[in-house]
């Protein structure tokens, strides 16, 4: 009995919001709609190019030159045709070899360096870190001439090896990124391992590396994609023999060398993009966290 009036008061208070809130709620709804409308418009602009590329990839060569946007017929045979007209399979093979070897080599060489920069106390450590950043920022074109001449002396120009072998000597961007992550791991973990009698190397392999998995996955993916997308490196070193080309090189020369139409060019473009997009959907979180590491506060 005594509780009832109190409840009604509370109910009434809940049912009738204070008068001034009304227009605000209306404005909030408008604001909500506006925000999402802009987001949808942007999404269409970001996705549009990808959709049109994919649609063109299955058009006939005549239709690709018209303004009709939707394929009249779906020419899936375009994808087979590009393999017949160009050494696409060889290019894909070369690109995979370049990307995989470079990524494995980079991890082997860069992890110990990043660990040393993050953990060891030694004279010149700050200088070493600043030099890593400096090399990371150095445009590759600056040292291109003498480096090219060295590879030429070893008769390795005309192959992709000048792009792969240096990865055994560390990659500045990966070192930087890994180091940024490793410094966030509390020292207590490695100290505890040491108390248990772990040597420095075993501490790195058994304790630190498992904790650093997200960062290692991120640099590995970045390196793989960098190589997959690389155009400048292969353009400089792969030479004129089509059998040594990568996908990027082949794609850029697609129209000029093979005089093929837009529909086939877009089909090859779809093939070049597909692995990247598929991997991204499986490893989205790794990417996003990795990119965050690159933006230094």
């Amino acid at each position, binding site marked *: 009995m005594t509780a009832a009036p109190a409840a009604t008061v509370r109910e009434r208070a809940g049912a009738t919001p204070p008068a001034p809130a009304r227009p605000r709620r209306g404005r909030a709804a408008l604001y909500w709609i506006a*925000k*999402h409308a*802009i*987001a949808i418009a*942007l*999404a269409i602009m*970001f*996705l549009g*190019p990808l959709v*049109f590329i994919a649609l063109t990839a299955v058009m006939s060569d005549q239709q690709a*030159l018209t*303004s009709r*946007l939707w394929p009249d017929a779906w020419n899936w045979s375009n994808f087979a045709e590009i393999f017949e007209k160009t050494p696409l399979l060889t290019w894909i093979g070369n690109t995979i070899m370049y990307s995989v070897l470079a990524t494995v080599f980079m991890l082997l060489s860069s992890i*110990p*360096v990043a*660990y*040393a920069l993050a953990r*060891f106390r030694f004279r010149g450590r*700050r200088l*070493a870190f*600043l*030099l890593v*950043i*400096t*090399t990371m920022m*150095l*445009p590759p*074109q*600056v*040292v*291109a*001439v*003498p480096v090219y*001449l060295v590879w030429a002396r070893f008769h390795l120009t005309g192959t992709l090896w000048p792009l792969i072998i*240096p990865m*055994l000597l560390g990659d*500045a961007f990966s*070192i930087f990124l890994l180091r940024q992550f490793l410094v966030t791991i509390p*020292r207590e973990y490695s100290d505890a391992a040491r108390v248990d009698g772990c040597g*420095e190397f075993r501490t790195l392999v058994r304790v630190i590396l498992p904790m650093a998995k997200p960062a290692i996955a991120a640099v590995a993916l970045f390196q793989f994609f960098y190589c997959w*997308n690389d*155009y*400048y490196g292969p353009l400089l070193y792969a030479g004129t023999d089509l059998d040594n080309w990568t996908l*990027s090189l082949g*794609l*850029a020369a697609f*129209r*000029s060398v093979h*005089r093929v139409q837009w529909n086939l060019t*877009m089909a090859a*473009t779809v093939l*070049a993009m597909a692995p*990247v997009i598929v991997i*991204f959907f499986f490893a*989205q979180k790794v*990417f996003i966290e990795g*990119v965050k590491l690159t*933006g*230094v*506060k």
Partner: protein
Amino acid sequence: MAAITLGNRLRPLAYLSPWLIGFALFFVYPLISTVYFSFQRYDLFTLEPVGLLNYRYFLQDEAAWTSIRNTLWLVVVMVPLRVVFGLGVAQLITRLKAGAGIFRTIFYLPSLVPLVAGTLGFVYLLNPATGPVQAILGTIGVRSPDWFGDPAWSKWGLTMLALWSVGDLMVIFMAALLDVPKQLYEAAALDGATGWRQFVHITLPVIRPVLMFAAVTGVIQTLQYFTQAMVAARVASGATDSAGSVFVPGYPDQSTLTFPEWLFHQGFRDFAMGYACVLALVLFAVSMVFTLILLRQFRGFGEEDA
């Protein structure tokens, strides 16, 4: 506590050794060598000291200065637009209540598209004769410019491509925006500051270091701008490769000729390697200025627990 033994002293050196060797082989040696070659005439066959000739040639090489102007244009227009656009998109996503995750994925995706593929796509899409963009604009009676075929528009075409792949910046800015302490906004709201004023007086000052970092690294990356310009010019010009002919970058009318492209062309297509080294040193000097600005941000960095 481990005693300071010789082993402990050498350990950092052992771990650092891959990078130390790499630094010597791929940074120190080639840099010194570049200085040496800049005083030579060298075409892969004959080496001849020419004193300052290469440097004097640089001063009167009109293509080089055109490429410098183009690169500056990209630095002044493309970099700020990317930062502003990236920040705008990030700000929008952090305020979305529904579907923020999906929108983030969609906005980020284009930045992963291989540069060559993305560039090819844009040249096709924006082609005024056959591209779908004109097809759509045509229905409302708008005539699109010849983006990659008109010297007045070609750099804008490249800028559109750069804005399309703004995703990496967006992710960095989103992280920064979400790090701004909420209490600051609450305090500002009590003082009656909302919307734009909150953004100017709270958000911007707090995320300023991140913006600075993005701008400076953006400038350094733009100084290396190569692939997109090369591919766009090549595809848009419709140039066909045949034996003995060398594609000269910059189409249309040298409007997309960037400095690294000219360096590459001089060194590895015309084999004026000595002269290319002069261009390399210019590029080195300019990017070092911006690298030093960047390093100042890292002052005190690497000292956290040393």
